[in-house]
Structure formats: C-alpha cells, structure tokens
C-alpha cells in the first residue's frame, strides 16, 4: 500500500476514514494520514482539489514503521477536532456518488467447446541496437568479417534496424554505401569530419532487395536474360555514392596520411596483442 498524504486543516475528509478495518491493513505510520482525496466530495476549504501540493507527513519516522507521535497526538496535530467542531460535533459526511447502473450484458450466443489459451501480454518495443559510445558519426571502423574484412571504413549513421551505415569511401578502398552489424566492427578513436555529408535519405528500405517482377515460367534463354539484368547497379545508387563520397573525400584529404590509412587493410602482425592494443 502506498503512503497516504497527510492533510492540511481545511482538507475535506472522505467517508472511508471512518472504517477502521481498512486503515489497519496499512502500516501503523500510515494510519495517521488520511487516504488520498478522490475529488468526489465537496471541498470545505477554499482550495480546489487539483491545486493542492503534496504535503509531507507531520509524523516523522523514528524507524520504519514507527511514528514519533501517538494516535491521539496526531488527532490533535491534524486538527480533526477543529473540523469536527466546525461541523457540529461530527465529521462532515458527503452523500455517496450514485453508481451508474452497468449496461445489461446479453449472454453470449456461442460458447467454445475447448478453452482457448490467451497469449501472455508482451509490452516490449522494438528498438535499434544500443550504439557503443565509441561509435559516433565520422568514426573510422575496422570491419572484421565478410568480403571487406580488415577494411577501414567511415561510419555515417545508425539505421532504424540497428545496423550501421558505412562507406569506404568507394574511391579510396572499394567499400560502397553498405550496412554493417555493430558486432563485426572495431571502433577506432580516429574521427573524420562528416558535417558536410547528407545521409538523410538512406534507410533500411534503400538497401532491401528489390521486389522481383513476376517471372514467367520460361526456361533456357529467358532465364539467362533475366539474370543479366539483375547484376548491374542502378545508376541512381552510383550517383548517391558519388555525392556522399565527394564531401567525405574532401575532409579526408585535409588530414595527412588519412587517405592511405583508409586504403590499407588492418591485420594482426607478430607481437600485436589485441587485448593490449589501443584502437
């Protein structure tokens, strides 16, 4: 049970404070504080219900569960005697809110023969993978697996699927605009200035497989002709690569040796201990 807020003198009292059974379930400390004002009663004071600030308890804890003041002392502290006096000897009562009659439910027409199990509630939301703090836009990453293993590559942004959008640049090391998983990457502490690059238009759909046209059941020559069409990159993707790389290469050439660094592959040599290397 949560802690109840204590009341200022003019706080209206609810009906259920007169029921001792309910109060005793709460810890002894909470007894001294009336339950939270529900807002249904008419206020005896000038304050509207919503304006009230949460009040700290007037009964400090000696230890958890034991208050400093006794029940009767708290009665006096809270001024319940004054409220009673104001109301002619007893607590002000409000009439109970009439409960609206629930709409009549018709009995169902059909009862299923077997009990259908309901799946458990799942409130998880899909989120992109948490990005390592060392990976920020412009970081040089080392790709560890796949066709481009060992290549040093510039990180552009994280896509909504969690994969990292990365580019060589293509002219420097042959790595195109590509998606890469964070786990297959070492982040170095070298950063490239990426402010001149616009990567807004790239998302996971850009990299997805194109929906195939309805292929006819033709075999032989038909099949080979179709295959050749799929292998070439569409021109707009090549243009995208060029625009992204143009701005990047300019900022890369500003740093001496960075261009040849990105063009070289990373490999472990004799004496290199990966757990001792600083990247």
């Amino acid at each position, binding site marked *: 049970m949560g802690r109840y807020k204590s009341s200022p003198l003019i706080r209206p009292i609810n009906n259920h404070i007169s029921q001792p059974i309910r109060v005793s379930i709460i810890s002894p400390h909470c007894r001294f504080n009336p339950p939270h004002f529900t807002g249904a009663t008419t206020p005896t004071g000038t304050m509207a219900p919503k304006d009230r600030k949460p009040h700290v308890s007037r009964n400090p804890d000696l230890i958890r569960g034991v208050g400093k003041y006794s029940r009767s002392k708290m009665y006096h502290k809270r001024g319940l005697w004054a409220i009673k006096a104001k109301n002619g000897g007893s607590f002000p009562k409000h009439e109970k809110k009439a409960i609206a009659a629930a709409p009549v439910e018709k009995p169902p027409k059909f009862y299923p023969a077997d009990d259908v199990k309901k799946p458990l509630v799942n409130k998880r939301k899909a989120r992109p993978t948490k990005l390592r703090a060392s990976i920020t836009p412009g970081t*040089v990453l*080392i790709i560890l697996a796949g066709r481009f293993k060992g290549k*040093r590559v510039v990180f552009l942004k994280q896509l909504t699927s969690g994969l990292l959008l990365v580019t060589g640049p293509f002219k420097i090391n042959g790595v195109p605009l590509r998606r890469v998983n964070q786990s297959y990457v070492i982040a*170095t*502490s*070298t950063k490239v200035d990426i402010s001149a690059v616009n990567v807004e238009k790239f998302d996971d759909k850009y990299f997805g497989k194109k929906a195939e046209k309805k292929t006819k059941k033709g075999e032989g020559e038909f099949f080979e002709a179709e295959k050749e069409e799929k292998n070439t990159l569409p021109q707009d993707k090549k243009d995208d690569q060029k625009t992204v790389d143009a701005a990047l290469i300019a900022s890369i050439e500003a740093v001496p*040796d*960075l261009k*040849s*660094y990105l063009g*070289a592959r*990373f490999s472990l040599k004799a004496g290199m201990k990966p757990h*001792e*290397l*600083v*990247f």
Partner: protein
Amino acid sequence: MPFKRYVEVGRVALVNYGKDYGKLVVIVDVIDQNRALVDSPDMVRGQMNFKRLTLTDIKIDIKRVPNKKTLVAAMEAADVKNKWEKSSWGRKLIVQKKRASLNDFDRFKIMLAKIKKAGVVRQELAKLKKETTA
C-alpha cells in the same frame, strides 16, 4: 661486485607492484628489515615493502621523515623529475608508455615513417658501397 645503490633516507625508488605501480617515490624512513616509509608529492605517506621497490641512482638530501613541503622543496632542488626523464631508464619507460597508448592511425603513420627512414638509410648505404668498390 659491491652494491652501488643503498636503501637510505632520500633514496628515490620506482614502485614495481601494486596500486602505485610506476611511480617515483622517496624513501623517507626505514621501518624494519622489510619495510620502508615512503613518500611522494602526489601520494599519502605510507609504508611499502622493499620487494615492491626498485632503487634508482637518484638520491635527494633530506632529514629522516621531512614535511611534505620540505620534501617537495628538496625534490625540486635535486631536480629529480628531469634527472629521471633524462636517464636511459626513465626514457625507456616513457617510450614504453607512448607505444602502449598508440592509436591504430598512429601505428599506421609510424609504419610509413619507418619505411621511409629505411629507404633513406638504404640509399645512403648504396651510395657508400658504390664509393668503396669504385
């Protein structure tokens, strides 16, 4: 082979084990056969086993258990920091630290520099060889 570096008040030592690994400290008093009272400008004065210390050649002029202020002044007067950094031991440690902290990009740049230097050396060598044979 007589001993050259002695444990004495004012001997500068290098800590080779523990929380203060790699620090230069001054032996300020000898507690017993195994332990010394040790102090440094950036640490609280405390005891250390001799096994955790490696003695250096540097010695400063202090009385037994000086104040921190006196100690710092004596270290400045003896120029411990510069003497250490100029000594071959001190220089080696500095190089080791630098190598350990190198970036992947730094390692690449060093590789390029090494290749360049080797190229220049080889050219000079070739020139000299030609002169001697000719």
